[in-house]
C-alpha cells in the first residue's frame, strides 16, 4: 500500500490532472495561507510547520519508504542547521550568498554526516539499525556540549540571517519573507522527495523494506539500497536544518537530542508512515496539538502520548491510513452508508473522550493546584474541582459516552463491511 496515486494507465503521461492537482492546490494554499492567518505568531507557527514537514518527510524516507526505524534522526537536521549558522557567521562569504541558497549547504552537510554514519549503520535493518541510530544520536547530542567550537555548548550558536546578500532587494527582516522562503523550500523538497520515491532506488527501498532477502535475489544489495535512502534522507534533513537556522537564527543542543528525534518519530507515525503525505498531516496535527493543547492544559503530553499509543495499537496506518481507508467506499459510491453510523459512534465517542479528559483534569487540579484555588475552567465551564458534583458529572459523562460508543460500534463495523462490499454486478 505504498501509493494509490498511480493509475492503471499503462504509460502515464508526465503531466496529468491527477498527479499535478495536489501540487497545484498545495502551491495555492501556501501562497494564500498568510493572508488568512496573518498574525506574526500564526506565521511563526506555519514556518515551524513547514520546517517540520520537510523533516518529517525526510524521516519518512527511512521509516515509511525504507522500513528503517531511526531513534536519532535529529542529528542530521541539527548538524545541517549548525553548519548553516556557521556560514551565517562567516561575514565575507555570507555577504555574497543570497539567503535562499543557504539550505543547500545544510543539506550537503547533513548528507555527509549520513554518508559517514550510514556506512556502518545501514549494514543491518530492524532492531539493530534502531539501536545504532539511538547510540549515534546520543553520542552526537552528548558531544554537543563538549565540542564547543562547533556546537557552542549548551547555549548553542546564533547568527543573523539579514547579513546575507539581499535577494532581489529582500533582506528577510520580516517573518512573512521567511515564510515564503520556507514555503518555497518546502514545496521543492517535498517534490524532490516524492520524485525520489519514484526512482529505481526509491522503489527498491520499498522492496527492501518489505523483504530484504528477496531483494538480494533480484540483484540488489539491501545494504546499499538502505544506504542510498539513508543518505538522501540525511540531505533533506539537512535542508530542514538550514531552514531552521534561517527561521530561528539559533541552534542549540535541543536540535540534536533524543526528545527531538522521538518527536519526529511520533508525528510521522501519527500522520501515517505508509503514505507519502502522511508525515505532512502528522507534522501539522502534532504542532497544532502542541501549541493549542499545550496552551489549554499542562497535561498535553499525556494526551499526545495516549493518542500515539492508540494509533500504534489500533490504526497503524495513522491519520493518512484512516483517510485512505475510505477510498474503497468512495470508489464504490457507498460513503452514504457510513454517515449515520459514524454520527452514532463518534458523537458519544467524542463525549467519552471529553469525559475521560475531564476526569483526568479534575483529578490533576484537585491534587496539584494551590490551596484555595479550587476553581477550574474546562470547556468554558468554571466550577469547583473539589465538589463532588463536578466529579459525578464528569464520570457520568465518561461512562455514558463509553457505553453509547460501545453500543453503536457493532453497527459501524457492519456498515463498514457493507460500504466496502461492491454491489452485485457493479465492480470498481
Amino acid at each position: 500500500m505504498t501509493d494509490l496515486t498511480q493509475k492503471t494507465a499503462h504509460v502515464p503521461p508526465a503531466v496529468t490532472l491527477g498527479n499535478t492537482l495536489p501540487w497545484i492546490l498545495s502551491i495555492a494554499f501556501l501562497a494564500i495561507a498568510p493572508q488568512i492567518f496573518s498574525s506574526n505568531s500564526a506565521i511563526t507557527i506555519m514556518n515551524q510547520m513547514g520546517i517540520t514537514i520537510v523533516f518529517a518527510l525526510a524521516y519518512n524516507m527511512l521509516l515509511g519508504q525504507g522500513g528503517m526505524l531511526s531513534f536519532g534522526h535529529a542529528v542530521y537536521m541539527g548538524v545541517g542547521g549548525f553548519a548553516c549558522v556557521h556560514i551565517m557567521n562567516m561575514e565575507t562569504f555570507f555577504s555574497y550568498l543570497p539567503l535562499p541558497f543557504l539550505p543547500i549547504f545544510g543539506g550537503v552537510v547533513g548528507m555527509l554526516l549520513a554518508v559517514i554514519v550510514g556506512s556502518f549503520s545501514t549494514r543491518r535493518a530492524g532492531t539493530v539499525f534502531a539501536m545504532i541510530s539511538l547510540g549515534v544520536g546520543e553520542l552526537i547530542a552528548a558531544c554537543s556540549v563538549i565540542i564547543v567550537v562547533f556546537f557552542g555548548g549548551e547555549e548553542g550558536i546564533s547568527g543573523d540571517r539579514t547579513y546575507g546578500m539581499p535577494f532581489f532587494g529582500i533582506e528577510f527582516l520580516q517573518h512573512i519573507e521567511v515564510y515564503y522562503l520556507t514555503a518555497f523550500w518546502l514545496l521543492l523538497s517535498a517534490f524532490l522527495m516524492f520524485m525520489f520515491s519514484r526512482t529505481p532506488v526509491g522503489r527498491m527501498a520499498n522492496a527492501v523494506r518489505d523483504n530484504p532477502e528477496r531483494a538480494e535475489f533480484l540483484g540488489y544489495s539491501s545494504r546499499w539500497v538502505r544506504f542510498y535512502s539513508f543518505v538522501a534522507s540525511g540531505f533533506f534533513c539537512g535542508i530542514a536544518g538550514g531552514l531552521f537556522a534561517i527561521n530561528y537564527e539559533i541552534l542549540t543542543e535541543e536540535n540534536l537530542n533524543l526528545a527531538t528525534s522521538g518527536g519526529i518519530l511520533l508525528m510521522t507515525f501519527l500522520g501515517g508512515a505508509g503514505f507519502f503525505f502522511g508525515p505532512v498531516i502528522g507534522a501539522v496535527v502534532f504542532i497544532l496539538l502542541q501549541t493549542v493543547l499545550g496552551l489549554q492544559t499542562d497535561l498535553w503530553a499525556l494526551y499526545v502520548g495516549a493518542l500515539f499509543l492508540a494509533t500504534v495499537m489500533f490504526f497503524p496506518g495513522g491519520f493518512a491510513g484512516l483517510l485512505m481507508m475510505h477510498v474503497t467506499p468512495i470508489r464504490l459510491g457507498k460513503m452514504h452508508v457510513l454517515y449515520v453510523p459514524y454520527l452514532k459512534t463518534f458523537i458519544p465517542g467524542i463525549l467519552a473522550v471529553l469525559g475521560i479528559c475531564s476526569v483526568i483534569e479534575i483529578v490533576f487540579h484537585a491534587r496539584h493546584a494551590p490551596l484555595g484555588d479550587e476553581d477550574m475552567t474546562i470547556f468554558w465551564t468554571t466550577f469547583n474541582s473539589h465538589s463532588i458534583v463536578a466529579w459525578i458529572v464528569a464520570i457520568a459523562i465518561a461512562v455514558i459516552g463509553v457505553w453509547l460508543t460501545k453500543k453503536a460500534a457493532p453497527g459501524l463495523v457492519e456498515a463498514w463491511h457493507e460500504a466496502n462490499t461492491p454491489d452485485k454486478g457493479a465492480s470498481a
Partner: protein
Amino acid sequence: MHYTARCGLGAAMALFLGTTAAFADNVKIAFIDPLSGAFAATGTNGLNQFEFAAQTLVNDKGGVLDGDMFEIVAFDNKVSPKESLIQLQVAIDQGIHYVVQGNSSGVANALTEAIDKHNRRNPENQVLFLNYSAVDPALTNEKCNFWHFRFDANADMKMDTLTDAIAADPNIKKVYIIGQDYSFGKAVSAAANQMLAEKRPDIEVVGDELHPIGKVKDFTPYARKIQSSGADAVITGNWGADMFGLGKSILDNGFTGPIYTYYAAADGMTAAFGETGDGHIRLVSEGASNPPPTPEAAAYIEAFKTKYPDGNVSQSRITNTIEMLAAAINEAGTATDVVKVANALEGMEHKNMWGGTVYMRPEDHQGIQDLHVFVHTNDGITYDYDNSGYGMLTETTVQNAGMDSPTTCDMKRP
C-alpha cells in the same frame, strides 16, 4: 489549571485570528518558563511568585499609571530555546511589551538575541526582557543589549560572595571545585579559581573538574575522588538532579565539610537533603528569610504561604522585578514606549522589603544588591522550605555585592 486555561483560549484565538492588543488596559507581562516537563516544578513556583507579587505589590495598591493592572500571562517554553522563541512571538502578537524569564541561561541567551533583533527590525513594537534568574555573566557583558535587564546577581558576583565566606573560614585549606560541563559550570570554576587565588593564596584547589550535564547516573566515583583528595570544602554550581545527586553522594560517602552551592534549596531539594545536609549545604543568594529582614517581608511570606502552602518564596528578586517595573512605568508615564521605561529603569535605586536596595547599573543593566550566604539547617528557621522544617539561615552578608565589578558591556542605546 486555572491560569493556563484563562490565558490559553485567548492565546489560541490570537494565534490564528491575528487579534492584537485586545485588552489594552492591562500591562501584560509574558512569563516564559517551563510549565511542563522536568523543570515544571521550578517554573510553576516562579509563576506563582510572579502572580502573587503582581497582585499584592501592584494591583492591590491601585496598579500603575491611572489604575492599569499588571497581568501575568504564562507561556510554557518547556525549557527549549526554540519553543521560547515561538512563545515570544505569540506574546509580542498579543501586544505584550514585557517578557520575564529565568530558567536556563541558554534560553535567556536565545531570548535576548531574538528580542534585540526583533526590536531592531520592528521599532514600532518593541519589547523589554526582564531576566529574573539566568546568571550567565555574558548576558551583561559581551552579550549585553539595551533591552535586557538582570534582577539577579550574576554568577561572578555570587562567587565573589561565596569566596568571601570561604576566605573567612581559616579551617578551609583545600577546596574541590566540581560543576556541570557547560558555560555556567565553566564560569563558576574560572571565577572560583581566580577569586580564591586573590583572597586566600594559601588555599589549595585540590580538584577542579566538570561532569556531563544531566547524564550522570551515579556520583559515587566523584564523591570518592573528593573524599580522597582531602578537600575541606566543595564548590559547585550544579542545579536540579545533578545538584541533589552530587550533594547526596558526597555526604553519603563520608564527607563532613561544607558544600558551597548556588542552587541547593527549595523546589523539593531542601526536603530531599533534610537531615543529611544539615550544616553542610551552603548557598549564595539575595533576599534572606531567616531571620526575616523586615516585618513587611514576613507578612509577604506568610500571605504567600497561605495561598500556596506547597510553594516557597525562594526567589525574592521576583518582588524586585515587579516593583521596579511598576516604578519605571510610573516614572516614564507610559507602559507602551519601552525605551522610556528602559531609560527609567537604568540607574534606578529601589529600596526593597528584604532590607536592602537594588541598583540597576546603567553600564550593563545588571542589578546590584545585597548577597547572603545561607546554611541549610532546622535550627532558628522561621520560614522553612518545602514544609520540611529545614530552611536557609543567613550566615554572612555582602552589601551591594559586585558594585565595582568590571563589565565589558558596550551598551548601544537606541
